[in-house]
């Protein structure tokens, strides 16, 4: 029956009512300003793109994750499941001649099926930065420092940036010379920190004891910078050692910024190792069981769009930030209207001019329109916590009232 769904929403999307919307916009505005002041330029790409942008590249996004549409020519379109890939497309094509490095940022929604987000969200508001064209640790440190600064500015309590390096694990896999499927099994178990199953799997594989031992210790190599020393001690392979050197360099810069206390490490962080090619990181905070932000280095993606560029960046989930801030008591109420204007017939012109003057001085102002609920403007002002009422009357002229909020508590 058509019409039976007219009062509800599809799964995974939500309305942002004024209280939440005010905080969402406030946070987005702060993020926008901070990214802008950090020398990044905002970029906007369409919500609808060709399926191939996400499915025809390596690594691709699983097709069952994507919202699909068909265009009049029969081609498959998707609601973008990610914004980094469209930015890579733009950088590889329309911005191919722009000088490097490129610093870009975005705020926008991505769309995915699946339960990958808290509250099973399928429309996910994100903000993020991409730093393209620089491969060194300075670039990785820059984006990690931005994530830390952002959380500090937003007043998030007790957060950590957990840093990994996927090349460490890739180095071990290369040295072991095992099949892709075996590597994937090992990766999944390391990612779950499943020591027992990992031990049993490694026992079966024909690889050297030394590599086995290092792989077996990977799930436990998390914590403060001590674990880097430990990893250095057991690493012989040049790729693994280079990965650790790289973390040390990034850590050194973050230490100079005084940010070392916000940083921990996890060499067993191997979740999306097909996409990332170096440093990866996640931001976590008290009161939220899943990360607020994630990012890392992805040096191979842009070449899929015709330009071979190193790149790094991160994205933060706006809804996740809102949940964390709410749990930590950091959301704000919508500021009340400053002045209520009451107008008698014939005084509209004067009143309007007065209201415009207030707005130009950044005051919120509202005209009183009597309704069934409130016939008296002072009652209305008291209810809405509006501190000042200005009446434009035909005989008495302009009459001002300071509203006493105490009266209604008695």
């Amino acid at each position: 029956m058509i019409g039976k769904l007219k009062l509800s929403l599809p799964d995974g999307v939500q309305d942002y009512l004024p209280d939440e919307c005010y905080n969402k916009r406030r946070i987005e505005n702060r993020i926008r300003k901070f990214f802008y002041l950090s020398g990044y330029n905002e970029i906007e790409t369409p919500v609808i793109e060709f399926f191939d942008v996400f499915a025809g590249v390596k690594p691709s996004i699983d097709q069952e994750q994507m919202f699909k549409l068909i265009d009049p020519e029969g081609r498959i379109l998707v609601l973008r499941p990610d914004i980094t890939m469209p930015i890579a497309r733009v950088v590889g094509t329309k911005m191919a001649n722009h000088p490097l490095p490129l610093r870009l940022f975005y705020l926008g929604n991505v769309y995915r099926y699946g339960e990958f987000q808290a509250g099973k969200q399928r429309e996910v508001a994100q903000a993020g930065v991409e730093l393209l064209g620089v491969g060194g640790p300075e670039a990785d440190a820059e984006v990690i420092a931005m994530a830390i600064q952002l959380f500090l500015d937003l007043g998030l309590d007790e957060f950590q940036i957990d840093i990994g390096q996927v090349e460490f694990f890739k180095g071990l896999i290369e040295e072991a010379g095992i099949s892709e499927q075996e590597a994937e099994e090992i990766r999944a178990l390391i990612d779950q920190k499943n020591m027992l199953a990992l031990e049993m799997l490694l026992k079966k594989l024909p690889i050297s004891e030394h590599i086995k031992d290092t792989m077996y210790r990977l799930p436990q190599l998390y914590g403060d910078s001590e674990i880097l020393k430990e990893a250095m001690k057991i690493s012989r392979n040049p790729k693994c050692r280079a990965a650790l050197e790289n973390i040390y360099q990034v850590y050194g810069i973050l230490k100079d910024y005084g940010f070392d206390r916000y940083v921990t490490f996890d060499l067993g962080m191997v979740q999306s190792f097909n996409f990332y090619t170096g440093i990866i990181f996640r931001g976590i905070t008290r009161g939220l069981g899943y990360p607020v932000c994630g990012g890392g280095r992805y040096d191979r993606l842009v070449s899929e769009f015709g330009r071979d560029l190193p790149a790094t960046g991160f994205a933060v989930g706006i809804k996740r930030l809102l949940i964390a801030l709410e749990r930590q008591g950091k959301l704000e109420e919508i500021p009340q209207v400053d002045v209520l204007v009451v107008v008698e017939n014939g005084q509209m012109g004067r009143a309007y001019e007065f209201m415009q003057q207030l707005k130009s001085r950044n005051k919120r102002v509202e005209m009183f329109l009597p309704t069934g609920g409130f016939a008296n403007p002072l009652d209305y002002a008291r209810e809405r916590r509006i501190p000042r009422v200005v009446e434009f009357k035909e005989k008495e002229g302009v009459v001002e009232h300071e509203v006493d909020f105490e009266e209604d508590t008695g």
Partner: protein
Amino acid sequence: MITIALAKGRLMEEAIDVLEAAGVGCGQLKEPSRKLIFFTPDQRIRMILVKPSDVPTYVEYGIADIGIVGKDTLLEEGRSLYEMLDLKFGQCRLVVAGFPEKQDTWITRSHTRVATKYPNIVRNYFSRKGKDVEIIKLNGSVELGPLTGLSDVIVDIVESGRTLKENGLVILEEICSVSARLVVNRVSLKMKNREIKALINNIQTVLEERRNGEVN
């Protein structure tokens, strides 16, 4: 404070034994009560009792930092968690079972009806084998499926195999073995590392003592 989600049902008693042996005071839990939330005497650990299939959910969302639940439930729910310890109790096997005489025909038939409490496990298992099956989700007494003609086979956990035998069913394939696991939320392990690591170490010591006890 850390929160532990315990699966009500077959794993509950042994989970409490392990926790007690590891120094987590579960006294409150042993008294008959309808309460769902319990605290250790020192108030440092909170325990919540939930349906087994809800344990991974509570832990993934971070409402519980730690969960104790069967591997079968973990496979079925497919949540993103750290699976840090095999607690060794609640051992059983996840199997495909059916009538012995149909053993050959059902494997070769192109369309098999599978009754189960574990639709996701069944889907993954058979799709890995390149077999299309019709999954019939049941909530209990799965053995009735083949007996009543609702399904050709079942996928379920088997401890001794007595229920199967008494109903004339046999194990056709073994999918994997199952036992109770300790899972940890991915953020909690980092944000509450000291408390959680200490508890895990204590439990590990208990498990080792038990294993040594069995050997001697």
